[in-house]
């Protein structure tokens, strides 16, 4: 069974179609790199997959269920453009909060574990408002991984990460994939994403322009896809 099944999805903003008849599947355990120019519709699609917005037409099945179902949301992790952590809470409090919201057994313990894993152990009680940018991003990553999601939806996760954070995220993603989890990420950082990707999809002006496995050719020449399937 596919982890994600997208069937005939359209999204209208008024009369304007942001997504036109998108259909594809994502196999469990695969890593899909979602490419496309700005304004192509990547974020719109990811938001629908994340259950943050509804499609105008079409069906989406995530892990066999509706995107908004509680079970689905518990097994899915979303990392968008914003870091999704609270400025006035400490790193520990943030993770513990999300641990509770995701129904984890030992939110405090798991929070501490993930602080260690993302290198934030020493600042566990520091307020996020005092954190540097790099530290915030690590915390965001910790929040995304903490509840052991079966599906990770990441919207341009490598943007504005420094090199150490990029490596940390790549390692975490590799470990997750090795564990049989599924990853969908949209990206402009072609190199970092294509290294991890098993599959690739290209969205062009709201339509699916390409869907297939990631080839060696794509890895060696990251703009290959755009040249062949994207607009001029």
């Amino acid at each position, binding site marked *: 069974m596919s982890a994600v099944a997208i069937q005939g999805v359209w999204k209208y903003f008024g*009369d304007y179609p942001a997504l036109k008849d998108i259909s594809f599947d994502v196999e469990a355990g695969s890593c899909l790199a979602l490419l496309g120019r700005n304004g192509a519709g990547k974020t719109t699609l990811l938001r629908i997959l994340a259950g943050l917005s509804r499609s105008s037409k079409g069906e989406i099945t995530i892990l066999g269920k509706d995107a908004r179902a509680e079970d689905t949301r518990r097994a899915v992790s979303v990392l968008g453009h914003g870091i999704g952590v609270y400025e006035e809470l400490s790193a520990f409090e943030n993770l513990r909060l999300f641990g509770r919201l995701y129904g984890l057994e030992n939110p405090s313990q798991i929070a501490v574990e993930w602080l260690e894993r993302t290198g934030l152990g020493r600042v566990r009680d520091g307020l996020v408002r005092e954190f540097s940018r790099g530290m915030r991003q690590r915390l965001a990553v910790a929040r995304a991984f903490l509840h052991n999601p079966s599906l990770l939806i990441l919207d341009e996760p490598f943007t504005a990460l420094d090199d150490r954070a990029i490596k940390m995220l790549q390692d975490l993603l590799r470990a997750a994939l090795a564990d049989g989890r599924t990853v969908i990420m949209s990206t402009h950082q072609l190199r970092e994403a294509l290294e991890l990707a098993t599959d690739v999809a290209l969205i062009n002006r709201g339509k699916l322009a390409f869907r297939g496995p990631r080839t060696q050719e794509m890895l060696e020449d990251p703009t290959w896809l755009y040249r062949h399937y994207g607009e001029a």
Partner: protein
Amino acid sequence: MRTKLIILFSVLAGGLLAWNLHTIFLKVPDEASQGAIFRVFYFHFPAAVTSFSCFFVAMFSGLIYLRTRNLRYDAAAAAINEVAFTFALITLITGMIWGRIIWGIWWAWDPRITSYFICLLMYFGYFMMRRAIDEPHRRARLSAVLAVLASVDIVIVWKSIEWFRTQHPGPVLEIRGGGGMAPGMEAPLFWNVLAFLMLETALILVRMRQQSIQSEIESLRRYAHAF
């Protein structure tokens, strides 16, 4: 098709109104205690009754939008609310005119006029909110919810102000006065309710047509800007 409906309703409304005006001003005698000003009631009452029910109809239209996500129901709801707002304003103004003539005051905090005023405020907020949202489905969604809250609240407001005024009696702008109206005087009232309903339907249809043209322009604009 819609144009034909609009014309049909307008003609019927116009004709009926003209005939009613003739009856009201020429045929019906002056009312016993209040005199000529009582005729304002023939406009005040239909406006009040029709606008009030229109708000509830609009609420249902909004709920149907939430169920079907068809923007036409939102367009209908907005148009109905706009017309209802206008006629609620007419209710208020005719009530004020009557109050001025009979009681010598433009305003009195009696239950009905106060409730209508609050209703107008709530729907003014409704229109302001609609103007602040560009995306049509979001606008439709939030409008539908707001309309439900407003309609429920109108009922509560009405009752609570009545209770308030029973405890703090003030001048009661009860236009109807005593027991009822003499038989011959009631008929034009109901005819005018009918006339108002037809007029409102015509106006609603016109508004809906304007809205669909407007939304087409907006989407064309969006399309043009995307490239």
